[in-house]
């Protein structure tokens, strides 16, 4: 790719992003710190045909995940047919017994899925993770594109790039589709949340109310938004940006002060849509990930279009043997952790660490998955005006209404550290725009 006007505007674009408040916050040692999310002006470019392939694979994957969750909280056929071992479901931290037998409006559990993919050096795409609970990040490429477009309008005129602004239209359409009658609200824990920028951005772009838990109240089996004058308006859909356990102190974590007491009972009676559906984390568990290709063939009768990274479950004798024999080549992930935490590369462990880890693995085989290290394709970033290759992944967003819809863009995250494969923003990574070509 040739140098173009846009890459010369890096500093200006980053300054503007900072001014717009494009930040994420992290808690470290009990302190809240807000950090800028560094933006790199060189986009990831995906050809039209290639994206069409990804789109097909992503739709299929999310369809199957939705079927799986509906099944788990309903008939549990996939367990009875012994495709997924029962213990992987019931021990998963994402499985919530309170969701058993509760059917969400329109049967949708995976309203917004953030599927993390990487492209290997062999050009093959692999799914690394399915994020179904409260996946964040779509606002970052949106606002970055907005600013880039302003800094360098020519770039977008001379290249045929799919416009990414329609994400919030899809979001609104999806929220209206599941709405049970009433207003649509984006529920935020407040401005000290890592993704507060995104909450306010989506509220503005979709026209939904941005509310905290204290502005919502349950009365007679319905949910109401209480405005500044004390007037109550019925709410039919809540895009909640707080996790399941904090959603309702009466059903989940009793200590929660950011949730809404009894909102879950309203939901149980079908009087409000919760986006995403509580309990859907049972399908994005790292242990369950292994079974996604099997789900696709089980529920859809199709072969998986997108591949998983080669994964081993030490839970299975055969896989455990493989893991022990090939330990140094593998990356190990603690299924209970997220955000790039609990990920260790075996070849970077000291002898002592290795021994401790192997003991833990033998004691709690269900707790870990092992994966082959995929040699990602590098993507260039600009560092002090010089192009340098770095590891990057792609979070693709799939929204589910009457059918799955894939946003023709995505969040490309990269590692700023040349030796690291971990791209999470909480681990100091940066992001890029993702251009899907329209021709």
């Amino acid at each position, binding site marked *: 790719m040739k140098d173009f006007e846009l890459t010369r505007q890096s500093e200006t674009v980053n300054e503007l992003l900072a001014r717009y408040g494009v930040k994420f916050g992290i808690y470290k040692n009990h302190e809240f710190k807000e950090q800028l999310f560094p933006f790199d002006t060189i986009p990831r470019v995906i050809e039209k045909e290639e994206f069409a392939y990804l789109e097909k694979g992503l739709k299929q994957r999310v369809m199957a995940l939705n079927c799986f969750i509906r099944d788990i909280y309903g008939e549990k056929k996939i367990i009875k047919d012994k495709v997924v071992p*029962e213990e992987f479901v*019931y021990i998963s931290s994402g499985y919530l*017994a309170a969701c058993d037998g509760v059917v969400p409006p329109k049967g949708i559990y995976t309203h917004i899925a953030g599927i993390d993919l990487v492209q290997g050096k062999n050009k093959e795409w692999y799914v690394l993770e399915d994020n179904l609970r409260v996946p964040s990040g779509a606002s970052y490429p949106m606002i970055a594109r907005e600013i880039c477009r302003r800094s360098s309008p020519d770039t977008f005129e001379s290249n045929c790039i799919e416009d990414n602004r329609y994400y919030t239209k899809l979001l609104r359409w999806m929220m209206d589709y599941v709405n049970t009658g009433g207003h649509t609200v984006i529920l935020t824990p407040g401005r000290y949340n890592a993704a507060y920028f995104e909450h306010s951005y989506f509220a503005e772009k979709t026209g939904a109310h941005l509310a905290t838990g204290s502005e919502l109240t349950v*009365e007679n089996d319905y949910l109401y938004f209480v405005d500044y004058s004390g007037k109550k308006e019925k709410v039919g859909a809540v895009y909640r940006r707080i996790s399941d356990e904090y959603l309702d102190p*009466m059903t989940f974590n009793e200590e929660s002060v950011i949730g809404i007491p009894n909102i879950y*009972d309203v939901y*149980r009676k079908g009087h409000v849509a919760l986006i995403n559906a509580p309990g859907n984390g049972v399908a994005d568990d790292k242990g369950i990930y292994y079974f996604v290709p099997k789900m696709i063939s089980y529920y859809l009768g199709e072969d998986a279009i997108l591949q998983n990274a080669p994964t081993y479950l030490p839970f299975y004798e055969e896989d455990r043997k493989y893991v022990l024999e090939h330990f140094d080549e593998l990356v190990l992930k603690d299924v209970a952790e997220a955000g790039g935490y609990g990920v260790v590369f075996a070849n970077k462990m000291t002898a002592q660490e290795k021994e401790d880890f192997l003991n833990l693995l033998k004691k709690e085989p269900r707790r870990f998955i092992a994966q082959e290290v995929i040699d990602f394709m590098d993507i260039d970033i600009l560092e002090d005006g010089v192009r340098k290759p770095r590891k990057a992944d792609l979070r693709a967003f799939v929204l589910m209404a009457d059918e799955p819809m894939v946003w023709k863009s995505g969040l490309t995250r990269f590692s700023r550290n040349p030796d690291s494969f971990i791209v999470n923003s909480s681990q100091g990574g940066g992001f890029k725009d993702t251009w899907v070509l329209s021709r």
Partner: protein
Amino acid sequence: MKNLRFHYHMEISFSEPVHSHIYTLKCLPVTTGTQLIQECNYAVRPTDRIQESYDSFGNRMLYGTAEEEHTLFQVDVTGRAVTGICDADAPGEKTDISVYKYQTVLTKPQGRIGKLLADCRKQEGSMQLSLDEKARFYMQTVHERLEYGKGITTIHTTAEEALALGRGVCQDYAHVMLSLCREDRIPARYVVGMLMGEGESHAWVEIYDGMTWRGYDPTNDLVVNDSYIKISHGRDYSDCSINRGVFTGQAKQCQSILAEVSEE
């Protein structure tokens, strides 16, 4: 079989007035395979709104809000039950038992439970115990290992901790027995209910024998009979809390329960 009359009274007194008090209660007995609830009335005071529902375990719930300031919150449940019946096709009983096979935060065993199970197995030796005999054996073991004592454990005490302390209340007895059963791959669940006579609410254990759920009371070392009225069940205490609430106000709260069960 017994015809029982019950009166369940729960009250919370607040040291200072509170308001906007939102509550969820699981205190209404339902008809099961062994008990028939013929009549069940309730009164919650004060309350502005009250709704009914069922949770995912099949327990009957009440929830609502008391908006105005109050220093006393009272719940009364009265009714009549026939206990000790046998009806395999009880309504409302869910067939999915898998969720009761796995340990929870409160029942998760560490060294002590594991050792206790190993001791039990040693004693069992080559005896071929039926599931019922095994459950009785575990019940008796737990009963012997713990000494009844109030104020030592809390609602957050785990089975492992209770066993280490060697003392606790009915909830702790139930958690230790649940932990043992589940470790031995027997599906087991936590039960809240009332006993004949006067006293607080009680907790015991039910195990699944492949056909039906059977009750065992490790606190009293008794197989559950027609002197028991069941209110709710779940994986552990936290699924069955009789009362959960949030309110506005700086107050200390004190909860007391009186259950009276007598023969008609």
